[in-house]
């Protein structure tokens, strides 16, 4: 039986409405309200299709044709399989680790020992229960409420996520690792909602790893709120199961002189999309958005960025690298907006892409929208093959053809990793890239 609602419903949204009606109760009323609003919004919009500009480079028909309903709330305590999975993928030098299995916080795999006082790190569901004051305002009043069907569906269905709340002035030198694992479900969706609030002049960073087994759709939303002078870094390493669909959304607001560094690496998964939306509200912010995708077979990936400079003096630097082999298809879409009055904004965007086979393709679409007259904005975009001159140079020194290719591609991607401040973390990420390259068939 279908749930009775008083708003228009797209046919593909119907199964999700039905699943919602059967969802858990016992949550606070404010959260239930928010979930219903998200559901209504999704029901009206349905899944985005290629007529919508932000979604034109990705094929989501499979999702439309076959519903992937949210995973159940009950999670078994992690067994050996999950522990092995974690050991194979985690960053060994992480000091603090928070693990989610099938979209639910797994305290038995997490460790936050030694975190300085002034930092709250916990699961979203647990935080809603124990410290609703930390999250309610953010969930009640989302910063971005435009046409975002996946975020709307996420609002309706998120079961858990991560909350990181950093008090003003607190400095954390070592990165917090957040690992999202999927234990091998078939045809379900995992909706996670995370929130990071970085207090004034605080400094911290996170490494988020997405990995798993099975066939699933992950729908992850992360919101970052950086107060004045806060410095925050986030790395998203996406190494999902070969048959997985990954939709990631990063929403950030920067206060005066806040500094954000975001790096996204899309390495594994059938279809991957990451969208970063940054609103630079304070003056003199620094926003660094980097990323790369490495694709082969029939993989598809889409990196989308939108940086909105609403205040003067901000700086944006973007470096995105795309690599596609086989029959893969990648795309980069990067928009930078400078509002009227946002003078002295300095923004540069670079999108460089390597297409390694005649059947692979990469699209790149820079968009600068400038409404102030005293700004410095530029972009560069290129799609090409490996540099034959460089290949010959390397071979002329005795390096074999295959090794030379790998080194060139690795070097090409490495430039995107440059803003990662921690040397061991950078090396870890490079080793994941190198590992992926050994599997990049023609």
């Amino acid at each position, binding site marked *: 039986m279908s749930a009775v609602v008083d708003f228009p419903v797209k046919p593909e949204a119907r199964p999700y409405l039905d699943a919602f009606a059967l969802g858990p109760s016992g949550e606070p009323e404010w959260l239930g309200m928010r979930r219903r609003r998200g559901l209504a919004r999704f029901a009206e919009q349905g899944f985005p299709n290629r007529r919508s500009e932000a979604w034109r480079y990705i094929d989501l028909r499979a999702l439309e044709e076959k519903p992937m309903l949210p995973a159940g709330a009950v999670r078994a305590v992690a067994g050996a399989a999950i522990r092995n999975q974690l050991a194979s993928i985690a960053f060994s030098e992480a000091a603090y680790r928070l693990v989610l299995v099938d979209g639910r916080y797994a305290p038995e795999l997490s460790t936050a020992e030694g975190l300085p006082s002034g930092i709250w790190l916990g699961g979203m569901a647990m935080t809603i229960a124990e410290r609703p004051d930390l999250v309610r305002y953010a969930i009640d009043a989302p910063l971005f409420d435009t046409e975002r069907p996946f975020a709307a569906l996420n609002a309706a269905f998120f079961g858990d996520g991560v909350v990181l709340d950093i008090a003003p002035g607190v400095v954390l030198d070592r990165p917090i690792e957040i690992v999202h694992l999927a234990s091998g479900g078939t045809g379900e969706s995992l909706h996670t909602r995370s929130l990071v609030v970085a207090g004034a002049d605080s400094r911290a960073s996170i490494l988020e790893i997405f990995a798993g087994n099975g066939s699933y759709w992950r729908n992850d939303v992360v919101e970052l709120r950086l107060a004045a002078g806060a410095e925050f870094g986030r790395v998203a390493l996406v190494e999902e199961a070969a048959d997985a669909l990954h939709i990631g959304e990063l929403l950030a607001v920067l206060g005066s002189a806040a500094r954000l560094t975001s790096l996204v690496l899309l390495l594994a998964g059938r279809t991957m999309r990451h969208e970063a939306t940054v609103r630079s509200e304070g003056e003199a912010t620094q926003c660094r958005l980097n990323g790369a995708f490495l694709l082969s077979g029939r993989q598809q990936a889409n990196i989308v960025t939108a940086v909105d400079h609403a205040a003067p003096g901000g700086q944006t630097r973007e470096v995105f690298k795309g690599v596609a082999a086989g029959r893969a298809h990648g795309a980069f879409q990067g928009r930078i907006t400078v509002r009227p009055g946002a003078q002295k904004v300095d923004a540069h965007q670079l999108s460089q892409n390597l297409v390694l086979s005649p059947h692979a393709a990469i699209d790149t679409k820079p968009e600068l929208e400038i409404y102030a007259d005293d700004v410095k904005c530029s972009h560069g975009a290129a799609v090409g093959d490996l540099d034959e001159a460089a290949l010959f140079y390397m071979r*002329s020194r005795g390096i074999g053809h295959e090794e030379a290719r790998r080194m060139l591609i690795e070097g090409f991607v490495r430039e995107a990793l440059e803003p990662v401040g921690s040397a061991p973390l950078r090396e870890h990420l490079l080793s994941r890239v190198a590992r992926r390259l050994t599997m990049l068939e023609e």
Partner: protein
Amino acid sequence: MAAAAAILDINNLHVRLVDGREILRGIDLAVNSGEVHAIMGPNGSGKSTLAAVLAGRDGYEVSEGGVTYLGRDLLAMPAEERAREGLFLAFQYPVEIPGVNNMYFLRTAINAQRRHRGEPELDAGQFLRAVRAQLKLLDIGEDLLQRAVNVGFSGGEKKRNEIFQMAMLEPRLAILDETDSGLDIDALKVVARGVNQQRAPDRAIVMITHYQRLLGYVEPDRVHVLQGGRIVESGDKDLAVELERRGYGLLGDAA
């Protein structure tokens, strides 16, 4: 000293570009170990084509003749195998490789060559010691090693980096393609010092150059004049001096 062994034997080599233009029209040249040869000639005479064909660059067709290197058919070997067998080409225009660290690049090359010869690979410490010994000689700062291969290097730095690679790879045959071009006099002296230091009884060096100037610092045993795709004249070091005086135009048949 034992009789010099033949390192390179070029026999009636004809080379065409893919578009059919013939660039080399019957080169004969024999180079023995311990020797330094200079190949001189005007622009367009085929000097760089000869270097490229010997190193194994694609895009050329050998229509006649052949090349024997250390008793083997050089032209049958892929470029990387030639290098592993001890052939080195110093590029006229060293290639920039963004994102690939100079040290990592060189160590990968050395170890690829050592594996080929059945020798153990160098570990990071051994490699670094070998590097430091050469750096001083070529007046190269250690910072150059931490940068991406040739990226942002000045013209002189690129050429010194080539000679540094040659010193590290210890080739049997080094071909220097216009290594002197674009160098000021101080850089030229440093490069020449590096080349002279590499002269050895079991090694041969072929310098390809337009001008006599490098030859004032690295004295060749033999000088050849390449013109119109052929070697039109050969002689000892005095030929280079004579060429400088009278120019290429007065020699034999112009191309």
